[in-house]
């Protein structure tokens, strides 16, 4: 199926990507080509097939809820574009 420019803009917003008007048509074309490849799946009857989420088909392993990591806050925050007093700084959210 082919995507419209409006659909591309909606998906881009969901993915928090910025797509310009010029790019939107190109993206629509690229994405539509891939969807055509994907749509081959629809020709197969899978009504009685259970979905397989994972090669093991197993549930998530659990571990005891204990603290195993040391506190490396300052070290980790050095990687941030902007941080101060243990906080990550972002543009103002609430006026």
């Amino acid at each position, binding site marked *: 199926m082919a*995507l419209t420019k409006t*659909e*591309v803009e909606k*998906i*881009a917003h*969901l*993915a*928090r*990507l*910025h*797509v310009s008007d010029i790019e939107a048509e190109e*993206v629509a074309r*690229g*994405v539509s*080509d*891939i*969807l*055509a*490849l*994907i*749509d*081959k*799946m*629809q020709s*197969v009857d*899978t009504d009685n*097939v*259970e*979905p*397989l*989420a*994972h*090669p*093991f088909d197993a549930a*998530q*392993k659990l*571990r005891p809820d204990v603290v195993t990591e040391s506190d*490396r806050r300052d*070290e*980790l925050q050095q*990687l*941030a*574009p*902007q941080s101060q007093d243990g906080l*990550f700084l*972002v*543009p*103002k*959210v609430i006026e």
Partner: protein
Amino acid sequence: MIEKTVAELSAALAAGETTSVALTQAYLEQIAAHNEALNAFITVCADSAMAQARAADEARAAGSTAPLLGIPIAHKDLFCTAGVKTTSGSKILHNFISPYDATVVERLQAAGAVMLGKTNMDEFAMGSSNESSYYGVARNPWSLDRVPGGSSGGSAAAVAADLCAMATGTDTGGSIRQPAAFCGITGLKPSYGRVSRWGMIAYASSLDQAGPLCKTAEDAAILLNVMAGVDDKDSTSISLPAEDFTATLNDSLKGLRIGLPKQHFTRGLNPAIESAVRLAVAELEKLGAEVKEIDLPNSDLAISAYYVIAPAEASANLSRFDGVRYGYRCENPVDLEDMYKRSRSEGFGEEVKRRIMIGTYALSAGFYDAYYRKAQKIRRLVKEDYARAFEDVDVIIGPTTPSPAFALNSMKDSVTMYLEDIYTIALNLAGLPGMSVPAGFVEGLPIGMQLVAKDYAEAKLLNVAHQFQQVTDWHKQKPSLTASAKTTEA
């Protein structure tokens, strides 16, 4: 010395015929001579490598016999390395210095390996050519106007051109096996869960697996011995009885049952590759193997299911890149949404954005059943195909790729490129182990034979590949490199 295998280097070091310092120096010189042309490394760590080499020589003098002691390795640039930049081939991580080592890195270092640097790759491992790297394409040592394959293209090119003795890679849909085939080396994708993924930057979490790229099956066994093992930090890593993958390399292939999937020898396969693979299979028959044709009826659907599942998981995994905690942030954002959108749009390349879009679409309200759930059902059909086939055979063999390494910039669109992975992708959906070993040359370029075994039967794969390499010398062929600076003999 630099052309030697890990097994040979290990013996030479133990016998005192060379030192880790001398070896590391020789590889660094080879990198200096050829990396400009190959662009196989994004980062070279000359000083820390020499320091590790000196430490390895001292440890040996003090009696250490760690399995990879003093042997130089290169890591794909999506394994986190403490203190050394880790980019995942992306602009969005251009300044990311990990505060910790990936488990794979840690295990290899504990085994004595010396890290030469970080290798080039398709951005976030999304690609089959290395052309989506933000750091420029890596080139194929056999022909500089050809791609080395991807996504572990830098690792494959580095091993093929003797820029390192061994390298790590990751494989989500063929990213170890296809570049190994294109560069004429040996690559192993272990079973899902065999190797810890902690500290490995995620692409598609139900498919990703780490493995070695090296010169021989024996080396792959030595590396897997070190890399494999359960890890509390990766809940998808599997606890299995300890295994020495080198122990069964010399087992006889008499009575081995080989299956050739008819779907892997049909339209689209380069006829010269077909002949080469059939000749390779004939060599295995001479060693006592029995061959039969098998049926993998859902082969064609694997690519379709993959291009739902992988992008869907990628869209979730890559949501962590938001310009807040690490990596690239856009200039002067006007508000939070602008910061998210522009940081991501300026930081990610085209192919990554395309896959995020596909994945977001497939998971969006109203489409989940038609795409993601449908793809998971196809995934079960693909896995069942293999399970059925393995009732009658021990190993499945076919070509790794439909064609030899293609020319740079020759793929017109994404879908054409995706179809290059037609033989490799199903294994990731099924979680099975697979290898590519050199099996001949087409148009002067190396081609690979893919071997597939049951879950956790890596030892069988390595045994078959090793026996094949005892009677063939495709894996010993070397590209002739014209030095951009100077050539060096170790």
